[in-house]
């Protein structure tokens, strides 16, 4: 049987290592961009073939990587995002930096490679190495606008906090190894849950939550996100929101949610359980994200906070799944919640990808990311405005767009459980979010342009990229069955059901 995953890894590695040499040969044009697009495309097809083959093979030395449907889902998702980001970068990364473009695309391939490896990791050290492989290139990418002080500041801030989170994860791994004597994720997770009488186990679990939570930008580990999103080139902000963030989610699912804990994380405190911790984080994340988004004046910051809020919704599925791990009575809800979370992760990538890339186009053409620049955009840049409006409606959960279904599943999954208040909070937050999504739509379609009224040219590549993303928003909304089914198959088996 063919090793599709290795093909994907090889394709991305060759592109990542080879593209920088291109600058000696082709100084002109976007040759490196096209090569990386081809490499990511090949990797995507390879993963799709792997998913179609239903392979469950394990990779080098038996236990570092394994192919399963959860991994396939995240690998395809993150590669899809990388592909869109690479294509959009062709028109969105300003030409003054094309001299460095081979490095830009090389870093992008490294990050894509890291995300693929994270998706399939079954070993904590492998996971950590893949995590760094993904993170380190993105620190450089965040600061890619070399002349811009804001971009440099964002990169430094992001790199320092990123290093902190990596260190946190590494510390959690070392504690886990010390307690359980294994680095295999499944074995370690199973064992951690039974070591809870030892407070170190609880600490290790919480450190994992903190470390992964940083990349997932959940409150209170989100501080870097708005700055980094604003300072980075906009396609890279799309990569953060739609790509690397999702790698944090899969790591959380693989490591933290596999732990079945019916008991409190620290001895003697009945409320301090893993689902409760996640529930509080979910509440804080969605509420703070939405409240902060309401007050933003810059589009990328607004999108960054909206992205934080969406992570809060996704956490709802994690909460009920973690609860179901220890309570077989809620297995049905747990499976629906996790399927909803996975579906929302997919949807969020599509919606936020569309939003960031459309915003990037506007910022590039109008030279400003302030919300004032979006006044009357419906007439000046109809394609960008329509894509933004559709992605905002989907993010707000307007049926029949894709975001509606995944939120529906997430809220339904908790409503008859002890976490019903999360559904209430989620619904109220959704209502709150209409305040800023509707506000921007109002500015784009109801307000008149402030200064210049002339129509602005929108490049064909961007029209295509945005067209495909908007089509996905609509198609996933009108025909959600296949994607939900895909998500359902990727839900890891509940420990409470398998014994």
């Amino acid at each position, binding site marked *: 049987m063919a090793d599709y995953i290795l093909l994907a890894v090889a394709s991305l590695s060759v592109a990542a290592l080879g593209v920088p040499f291109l600058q000696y040969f082709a100084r002109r044009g976007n040759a490196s961009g096209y090569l990386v697009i081809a490499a990511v495309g090949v990797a995507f097809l390879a993963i799709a073939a792997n998913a179609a083959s239903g392979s469950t093979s394990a990779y080098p030395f038996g236990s570092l990587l394994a192919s399963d449907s959860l991994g396939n889902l995240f690998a395809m998702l993150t590669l899809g995002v990388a592909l869109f980001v690479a294509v959009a970068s062709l028109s969105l990364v300003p030409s003054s930096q094309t001299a460095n473009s081979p490095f830009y695309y090389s870093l992008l391939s490294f990050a894509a490679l890291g995300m693929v490896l994270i998706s399939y990791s079954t070993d904590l050290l492998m996971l950590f190495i893949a995590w760094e492989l993904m993170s380190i290139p993105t620190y450089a990418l965040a600061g890619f606008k070399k002349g811009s002080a804001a971009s440099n500041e964002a990169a430094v801030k992001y790199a320092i906090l990123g290093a902190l989170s990596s260190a946190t994860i590494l510390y959690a791994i070392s504690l886990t190894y010390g307690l359980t004597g294994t680095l295999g994720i499944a074995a370690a997770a199973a064992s951690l849950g039974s070591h809870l009488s030892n407070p170190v186990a609880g600490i290790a679990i919480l450190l994992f939550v903190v470390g992964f939570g940083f990349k997932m930008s959940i409150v209170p580990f989100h501080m870097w996100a708005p700055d980094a999103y604003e300072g980075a080139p906009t396609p890279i902000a799309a990569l953060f929101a739609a790509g690397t963030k999702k790698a944090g989610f899969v790591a959380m699912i693989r490591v933290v949610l596999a732990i079945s804990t019916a008991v409190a994380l620290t001895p003697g405190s009945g409320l301090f359980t893993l689902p409760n911790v996640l529930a509080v984080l979910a509440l804080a994340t969605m509420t703070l994200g939405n409240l902060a988004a309401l007050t933003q004046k810059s589009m990328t910051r607004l999108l960054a906070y909206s992205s934080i809020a969406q992570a809060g919704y996704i956490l709802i599925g994690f909460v009920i799944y973690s609860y179901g791990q220890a309570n077989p009575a809620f297995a049905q809800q747990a499976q629906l919640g996790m399927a909803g979370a996975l579906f929302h992760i997919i949807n969020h990538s599509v919606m936020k990808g569309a939003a960031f890339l459309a915003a990037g186009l506007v910022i590039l053409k109008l030279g400003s990311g302030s919300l004032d620049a979006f006044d009357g955009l419906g007439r000046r840049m109809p394609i960008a405005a329509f894509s933004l409006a559709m992605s905002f409606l989907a993010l707000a959960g307007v049926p*029949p767009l894709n975001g509606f*279904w995944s939120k529906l599943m997430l809220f339904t999954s908790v*409503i008859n459980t002890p976490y*019903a208040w999360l559904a209430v909070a989620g*619904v109220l937050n959704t*209502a709150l979010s209409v305040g800023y999504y509707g506000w921007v739509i109002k500015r784009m379609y109801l307000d008149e342009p402030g200064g210049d009224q002339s129509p602005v040219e929108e490049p064909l590549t961007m029209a295509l990229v945005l067209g495909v993303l908007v089509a996905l928003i609509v198609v996933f909304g009108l025909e959600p069955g296949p994607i*939900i089914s895909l998500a359902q198959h990727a839900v890891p088996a509940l420990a409470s059901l398998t014994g």
Partner: protein
Amino acid sequence: MGYVLSLLILVPLLGSLVTFAASSLGGRRQSASYIAAAFALATVAIAAYVFWFVYSNTPAPGYYALTEDHPWIALPGFGVDILLGTDGLSSPLILVSGIVGVLAVLSSRSLIDKREPAYYSLMLLVLGAVMGAFTSLNLVVFYLFWELALVPMFFLIGVWGGDRRKYAALKFIIFTFAGSAVMLLGFLALYFGVSPSTFDIPNLARAGVPVALQYLPLLAVFVGFAVELPVFPFHSWQPDAYEQAPAPVNALLSGILPKFAGYAVIRIGLGLFPAAAYDYAWAFILLAVISMFYGAVVALLQKDLKRMFAYTSISHMGFVLFGAFATVASGNPLGIEGAIFLMFAHALAVGALFTLSGFVEKESGTRLIPKLAGLGRRFPVTAALLAVSSAAAIGVPPFANFIAELMVISGGISAYASTAVTVLVPVITGGYFLWMLKRVVIDPAQEAGEPGEAADVSRLDAALVAVYLVPLVLLTVFSFLVLTPAAPVAQWTANLVHGAKL
């Protein structure tokens, strides 16, 4: 199995696409109104067929006619069906939506003069969503169509509305979205409540929602209904939205959209939460009565015609809520029958009034009652239509509105004798409409206007307003057309609510 109801939804939705594509690509913006009118007429024809079908083949209590079941999401652990069906509760609303839809499109011809392709496309989108909401028997699909009507309405108010349109549009969308989001929460609570899990209204009703699951969800869905109707104190978006929306849009916004909520109160509020509805009936009746009086008294104080009609609407929608819960409290189906009848009649009466307000504004440049004095002399046809439409809204015989109000109030009295005080509401309504007519139609103009500056309402437009009113007169004689199919639904709901407490 047929495809009548699918057609009813798809014809306007398709019309929405065709209108936009044909008229914007073809370059002739004006053609949009003709294309839209053709689709709206086709819709009303199907709606009339549905109405007639339900009248002649009234489904047994608790069952539905013309049902269709299209699985949408059919997965283990999660399923949503597009389950369509109609009965004596929804068929009158379907017909009246069709009538108001086509009249709204036709009356736009002389009132809307910018960006026609998008305008007519959005109007048909609303009409399609309305038909979907009234025929959906699945909670999620119902919610979907409900929301689908709100988004185009945001643009219709925000782009084509009056001076404060942007504020009104944003307020409208935030309020109604927040309300429907809370309503959705109530729907979701039911999913795992019965086994097998379902969002289908008939299955939920048949299985019976566990009593413990009725109270909080009823309150949640009621928030959505209360914002949409609207009921005091959830109404603050409504006068702004009604005032700023362009007149033809108003016919849909005030004539049809509140009926979503009136319909849902009976179908979902009472049908799925009978025990809770029974226990809370007194509270809902209290709210309804407050709304009826509040709307009427505040309407009295309004200077702007549209705001006055808006508050009238609050008062009349209070009647609908009152009727529904009067049946709950007393077991007398009269209340629900009256509520259904009133929803039909109210849609046409306010449709006529708001459309007229558009013509008045176009002719005189203002909607302010004090400035409109002398309208009777300057624009006699408009003034006459205004007087007749007001009579319909007040409920003067031969307009059917009086039968409806009579039924609701009698139903109410059979529940709580003290609610007899609500007979004052039609009195107040009569009072402020007559006062308005005196100031606008009878009083002479304060300053000599420039006569001949604007033309009176055109014959076609006058005919459109008349068409709103004709069914109201006919209904007085042929009230059985609505009431006969409505009776089984009302009786079934009354039995259900009382059965739940025995």
